[in-house]
């Protein structure tokens, strides 16, 4: 089995890098919309806030599990890289965890309190979502900059922190277009328009900055013939962003049958951006320092996990789909049964 696909020292690290990338992407899309809804929840009436939170209530826990999965794969498949990355990002990781804690517990506490305590938990829900989004964007920026901490890299990280939060707000707004109706849905359309601008700005910033900091990347993207294979990536992204923009301007969006398209477009945009980054960084897991091949664990141990993943992953996808199917349709107030 081990040598079935060639040298296990080559294909196993690659398979796990792919699995990790997949988990990060799913996390960014799924928890991205949860966090985005959380950030937007500060700007609405109480009744609207209840509906917004009800629209993510049944899903957020499973969505967050993809982060555990991604960090778990980094931990188990590339232990040296896990140590190097997380110790370099020690402070933003701590901030993100505290944000995730606040956001996660606020779901429960706000539902069980009234009056001042309820308002305080709403504030915790918002600030937890905001802290998590900002710190994730900050980590992205520092990672892109090769985990260096200088004035320039930190300025860049501040920019990506802001843009990723905008991107999350964008995909969160698209989710609300799909899951809500009436005045709240109209607001969501406006938010989506603003968020789209920030998301595109973020993508541009990263696309321009990465080749600038690394001659290797400049070479990787702008040499012939790679350039030709890669050209579709930015072109398709621009097309998708343009299409979303047009749909968002359609006055019949809310009532029409196209309410799902902005969300699908947003997810596609995240995926395209992610693919570009994956291409840039391969084969490194710690930029310019450690490749996935240097960092990988022993092949026997990776194989044990790989076999499990091949069997379990489809099952996970199936019941995740089931959960989304059960809670399909417009969100209504949640209650414990």
């Amino acid at each position, binding site marked *: 089995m081990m040598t079935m696909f060639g040298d296990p020292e080559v294909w196993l690290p690659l398979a796990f890098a792919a699995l990790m990338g997949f988990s990060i992407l799913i996390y960014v899309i799924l928890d991205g919309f949860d966090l985005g809804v959380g950030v937007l929840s500060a700007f609405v009436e109480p009744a609207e806030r209840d509906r917004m939170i009800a629209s993510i209530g049944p899903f957020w826990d499973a969505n967050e599990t993809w982060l555990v999965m991604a960090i778990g794969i980094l931990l188990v498949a590339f232990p040296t890289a*896990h140590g190097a990355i997380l110790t370099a990002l020690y402070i933003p990781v*701590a901030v993100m965890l505290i944000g995730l804690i606040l956001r996660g517990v606020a779901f429960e506490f706000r539902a069980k309190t009234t009056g001042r305590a309820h308002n305080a938990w709403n504030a915790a829900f918002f600030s937890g979502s905001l802290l998590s989004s900002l710190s994730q964007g900050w980590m992205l920026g520092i990672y892109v900059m090769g985990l260096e901490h200088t004035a320039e890299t930190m300025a860049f990280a501040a920019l990506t922190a802001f843009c990723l939060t905008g991107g999350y707000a964008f995909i969160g707004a698209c989710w609300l277009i799909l899951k809500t109706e009436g005045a709240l849905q109209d607001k969501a359309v406006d938010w989506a328009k603003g968020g789209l601008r920030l998301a595109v700005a973020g993508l541009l910033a990263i696309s321009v900055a990465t080749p600038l900091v690394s001659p290797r990347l400049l070479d990787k993207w702008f040499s012939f013939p790679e350039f030709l294979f890669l050209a579709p990536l930015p072109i398709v992204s621009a097309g998708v962003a343009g299409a979303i923009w047009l749909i968002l301007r359609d006055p019949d969006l809310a009532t029409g049958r196209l309410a799902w398209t902005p969300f699908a477009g947003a997810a596609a945009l995240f995926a395209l951006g992610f693919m570009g980054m994956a291409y840039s960084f391969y084969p490194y897991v710690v930029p310019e320092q450690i490749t996935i091949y240097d960092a990988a664990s022993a092949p026997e*141990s990776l194989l044990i996990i790989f076999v499990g993943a091949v069997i379990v992953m489809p099952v996970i996808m199936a019941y995740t789909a089931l959960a989304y199917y059960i809670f399909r349709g417009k969100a209504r107030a949640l209650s414990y049964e």
Partner: protein
Amino acid sequence: MDDPLLLSRIQFAANISFHILFPTITIALGWMLLFFKLRFNRTGDERWMEAYRFWVKIFALSFGLGVVSGITMSFQFGTNWPGFMETVGNIAGPLLAYEIMTAFFLEAAFLGIMLFGASRVPNWVHTLATFLVAFGTTLSAFWILVLNSWMHTPAGFEMIDGQAHATDWLAIIFNPSMPYRLVHVLLASGLTVAFLLMGVSAFRLLVGDRSGGAGLTLKVGAWLGAMLIPVQIFAGDMHGLNTLEHQPQKVAAMEGNWETRGAVPLVLFALPNEELRQNDFEVAIPYGASLILKHDPQGVVPGLNDFVAEDGTVMHPPVAPVFWSFRVMVGTGFLMLLVSWAVVWTLWRKGGAQALNPWVLRGLVAMTFSGWVATLAGWYTTEIGRQPWVVQGVLATEDAVADVPAPMVAGSLTAYLAVYVFLLTAYITVMFGLARKAAKADRGAFDLPDRRSGRAALAPAE
């Protein structure tokens, strides 16, 4: 306070201690909810559904706290203990990965259906979701305890260039202490929930609950506790005998026994003094320890002095914390035995929970979180008793710590502690707030589902 090793240890201990509080509740409470649900499906007695409705809220709250603190745990390995994964990652990795893939996704996906889906799916799907969540939490306990037990009694591996490589996965999974630890921890969870059920139900009765539901759950808790505690004491004894075989220095610290000798007394109270290597103010039962550990009054029990190297390096754990936490756990265990049997006996003799004396009820409220006390004390015995090793005989704690500047660890530790104290206060306040609200609720306010279709009229959003 400028030693990153010490700070990292404190931070790890604080995080895992906070985390374990919630799994100990959710593991057994999930099964309790399934029990309530099945009783309702069977009998149609409204009180079971009411019990389900009330306890599912506490379950959801505990689960939320368990999840967020668990996420913190999975980052800890990288941020504070990179040496751990670098040395034993080939063993720990697959176990953690299987926990995530088989357990975490299962419980997280079906939790949504269990909490919010009753009006959207047929009753049997909802019951199935409840089962899968309970099963998922138990499965996750299984995997993490496999890993933790392996750290105490490593097996099925070889060291190559300073890294552990797996040679036999069955030996790794069924390592010598795993069966004992798994049984002991699952029983601990059952007991924690038994006393939680009793404590919160007693509180509801005290503030004037007339619904009948509180009396019912008090009774369930009392029977559960009374049935599990003798099993737990027996399982704990077996666990100790197994530990004697594999980690004698830990048992020596638990017993406060310095010299290897026969006819060792059972120390009830003492202040272990590591400087003079003796016990001060000892109160002991003659032959006790030899009898318990060797089933022979003259049995030879290993002592701590065997674990000091020629050059004076101490290779046994710090004595006092192990000695004391062990006594707290066992003491709480015997208190649980006394209380649960007394309550069951009274209920048996006098019928309903309403007949219980208010002072008994107050006592039960005071013991609401006794399971937490015993569980934490047990984990401290186990984990501190393994020091100075992270993985017994394989990796020393000081070799696993990250090279993070101490002020950074101090900063994150302070932030975590503040959040934890705050959340724990909020958790307990809200739990008793819910109990008070349930006690006051007008009976008519509960919309009961039609049993056949299981579709509930939407209860007012909480």
